[in-house]
């Protein structure tokens, strides 16, 4: 007999028994111990078919192949750059993944990307914890210009983006800001009006703080309208 001991969207803690019985399968951040399915994080219970998973409310960013991230250039070498993507180890952006130009050997690569530049790129390979390869060959991937950098917890990124980008588009439209969000939680933001930029920052922080609640989309719509009118 399989029983779910909690409701969907309920917040559970590590060690909490979510289900008893063998019919459910352990999904992300859930482990099976004999008859029990246990949560390993503080998060919301979600059912996906037969899988029970926990959507964590906080946690370190773990790089995955295919992730779009925003990294900061912390090393300029002879054949590429090293980027800080919020992981304990730096990731590599090789010359051939950055440009199809012919670059002479010995060129100072800092004229392409310099220390302190922020790059929107994609993880193309995670060979090990210390070997992570990036690329900017892809639509929209590029060096980011003048703007504001924020750091938000990576588990919140899906909520910040929203279904098919609906949430982030709402914020961009309401504030006339360009916003790029990396799966690693790094956000780049740039607008014309500092007051609207500030509103975008407030909106992102609000979504982050209330990501586990329902009705957030409507509330954010109201919030953005109200705040804009107040400006």
């Amino acid at each position, binding site marked *: 007999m399989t029983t779910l001991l909690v409701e969907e969207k309920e917040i559970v803690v590590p*060690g909490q028994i979510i289900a008893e019985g063998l019919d459910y399968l352990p999904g992300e951040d859930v482990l099976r111990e004999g008859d029990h399915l246990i949560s*390993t994080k503080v998060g919301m219970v979600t059912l996906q078919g037969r899988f029970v998973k926990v959507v964590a*409310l*906080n946690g370190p960013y773990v790089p995955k192949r295919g992730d779009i991230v925003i990294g900061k250039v912390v090393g300029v070498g002879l054949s590429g750059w090293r980027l800080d993507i919020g992981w*304990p*180890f730096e990731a590599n952006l090789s010359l051939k993944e950055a440009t199809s130009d012919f670059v002479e050997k010995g060129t100072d690569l800092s004229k392409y990307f310099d220390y302190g530049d922020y790059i929107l790129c994609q993880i193309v390979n995670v060979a090990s*914890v210390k070997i992570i390869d990036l690329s900017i060959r892809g639509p929209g991937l590029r060096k980011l210009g003048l703007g504001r950098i924020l750091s938000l917890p990576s588990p919140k990124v899906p909520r910040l983006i929203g279904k098919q980008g609906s949430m982030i588009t709402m914020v961009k439209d309401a504030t006339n800001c360009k916003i790029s969000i990396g799966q690693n939680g790094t956000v780049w933001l740039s607008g014309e009006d500092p007051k609207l930029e500030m509103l975008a920052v407030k909106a992102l922080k609000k979504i982050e703080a209330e990501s586990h*609640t329902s009705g957030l989309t409507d509330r954010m719509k109201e919030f953005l309208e109200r705040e804009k009118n107040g400006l």
Partner: protein
Amino acid sequence: MAYEKRIDGRKFDELRPFEAKVGVVPRAAGSAMFKIGKTIAVAAVHGPRELYPQVFQNPTRGVLRCNYNMLPFSGSGDRVRPGPSRRSKEISLVTEKALLPLLDLSAYAGSVIDVYIELIQTDAGTRCAGICAAAMALADAGIPMKDLVSSVAVGRVGGKIVLDLNKEEEDYEGHATDIATAFATRNGQLTLLQMDGFLTKEELKKALELAKKGCEMIKEVQIKALKEKYKGGNNE
């Protein structure tokens, strides 16, 4: 002299008033405060981050590094000289051992997860309070854990087995027995056991039963504190 009534009037199996709060150090990856009686511990987690020097890196999993420290004005008499002491280093070690069995650090090879525990005020049971705070801080940081860890001291004071000694009981008649324990209560697993004093095998059994009960009571409050952080988001 028979110990019929506890110095502060509690029952023998009663904890001092205690409370927990999560997220008290916003800049950290995770944090929590645990207060029991007059002992106040704050724990904060930073990392995973690269572990230096490299020779200490573990190629298969992350390393847990705990640092227990008493603030100079937190002792019960003289000022505590700042900096690590042999005692604080030992406590840091047993704290790490108390938490490690419940953590899954397989995703963080080569890295370290730092847990800093600071004691703001002390009245016995400091390492236990530190462990309670650290467990919540790790959960708050989203480090995968198989269970929370709860920790409390038991002992024998004036011949009686008691739960959660305060400083006066620790010093009672010069020879109370003090036992620090930590449990992952879901499976009743013990992860910390230290004893200072002497007692019989039967008394130890009784003491551990009592400690487990105490930890179960503490765990409820730890769970509540973790969930409390996310309450009240629906109203605007």
